[in-house]
């Protein structure tokens, strides 16, 4: 059982986590939902398309416009409250590495703190514990937030991702975060070459075997673009291929831009795995 705030999910359920960026410069949407009303409209759309949760971000992951905690809060806290009000049962996640931001968004109704920079601010775990929020444990190899990777290497990237995220999860449990409210995320592209992200994908079953539910963030990323030599706006098919492989390996939560397509891939893989029945089968059965 996975519990994310007010919602619980069965062990074989897969969840699409829709990206809702309140940024001007994120790599894929490039400010499309920076305005609060546009972001709220995006939430309505992704819910209709099958998203089980939304992930609200106020700071671009890569280098770019400086966004301090006050500005990040201005972009996220009030918006979380609006989403909470309109969608009382929707799981709301906030992508932040700052404890001071985590505290305010939890007060506004956030269910999940997606610590995309892997415990950079150790106090964020305490905030999750204090508010009963779920927490995402991410592998970033100790990188400084927003820092691009450079000449990074690992003896075994999968082992490193497992060791670091599981250690973070155990730290969260010790701090008081509920065991059933923790996810681990290998963090494709973060402090990784494309080779590393491909190996993580290929061997994701090893991460799933830890028993901690696995979140993957694959959507339109550079490892897809470099694999297929495609620009950002042409990576959907590659993203969906990586999504299918990750789902086959047993990942549970999929952070995505394109919701309907992702949901359909997850449903199909779920049927192939035998985790869910086909929608309607009469072929050769009449």
């Amino acid at each position, binding site marked *: 059982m996975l519990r994310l705030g007010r919602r619980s999910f069965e062990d074989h359920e897969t969840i699409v986590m829709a990206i809702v960026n309140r940024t001007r410069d994120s790599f894929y949407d490039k400010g499309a939902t920076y305005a609060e009303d546009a972001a709220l409209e995006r939430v309505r759309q992704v819910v209709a398309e099958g998203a089980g949760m939304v992930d609200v971000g106020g700071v671009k992951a890569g*280098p770019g416009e400086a966004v301090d905690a006050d500005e990040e809060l201005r972009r996220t806290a009030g918006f979380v409250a609006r989403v909470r009000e309109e969608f009382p049962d929707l799981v709301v996640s906030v992508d932040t590495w700052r404890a001071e931001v985590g505290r305010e968004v939890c007060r506004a109704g956030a269910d999940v703190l997606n610590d995309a920079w892997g415990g950079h601010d150790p106090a964020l775990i305490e905030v999750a514990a204090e508010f009963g929020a779920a927490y995402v444990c991410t592998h970033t190899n100790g990188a400084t937030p927003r820092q691009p990777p450079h*000449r*990074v*290497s690992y*003896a075994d*990237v999968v082992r490193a991702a497992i060791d670091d995220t599981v250690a973070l999860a155990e730290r969260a449990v010790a701090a008081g975060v509920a065991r059933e409210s923790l996810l681990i995320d290998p963090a494709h592209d973060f402090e990784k070459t494309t*080779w590393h992200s491909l190996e993580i994908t290929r061997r994701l079953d090893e991460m799933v075997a830890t028993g901690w539910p696995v979140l993957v963030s694959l959507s339109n990323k550079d490892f897809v673009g470099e694999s297929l030599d495609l620009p950002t706006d042409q990576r959907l098919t590659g993203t969906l291929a990586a999504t299918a492989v990750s789902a086959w390996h047993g990942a549970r939560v999929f952070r995505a831009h394109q919701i309907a397509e992702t949901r359909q891939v997850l449903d199909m893989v779920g049927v192939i795995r035998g985790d869910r029945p086909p929608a309607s089968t009469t072929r050769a059965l009449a």
Partner: protein
Amino acid sequence: MSVVAAAVCPMTPLLFRHLSGLADPLAELREAAVAAVRDATAGADEVVVLAPIGGREAPGDWRDPSHSGPVHGEPLSLGEQVGRHLLGLADCTLPVTCVEVPGLVAAPQGVKVALLVLGDGAAARRNGAPGYIDERSFPYDDHLAALLGDGDGTGLTQLDEKLGAELLATGRLSFPVLGSLMPQADAELRWRGDPLGLTYFVALWRARSR
């Protein structure tokens, strides 16, 4: 020790051909680097590789992320692995000593030594570069290019190390050592470019006849 020549080459992992997949964006750079190594080592008795170690830009224990290419003794430093790879591509069969820099360089008296100096310029020249954008990169790299092209070793010993570290320039670690061993040289800057937002240089230095 008598240094007869030096090849200055980048230390990007992409000099390993297999790491860039089907494409080979640095083919021309690799060719220039191998030619400089070949020219610098011709007529030498031994090779000393100056391999920078410091910061994430010059890792001391780099490992091939693809697991698919030739092994170069990992987990040695990135600089040493690239250096040994270039020597292999140049068909160099001379004895090789690798020195981590900054550090002391020594070789027996009366031996003609060719240096292979690994090091790059600034890594912060555009969006997408390892260090993002730092406008100081441009004059810094221009200055490096001038010193490498002029054979001005004395100038290389006076580089601003703090600035070099902030710009993730691995040459800050190795170029001053080259400068101290060859204060003046007959020099050719054979290649300069920043195709990935990080400046690469290839230069050939020959000892100036006295």
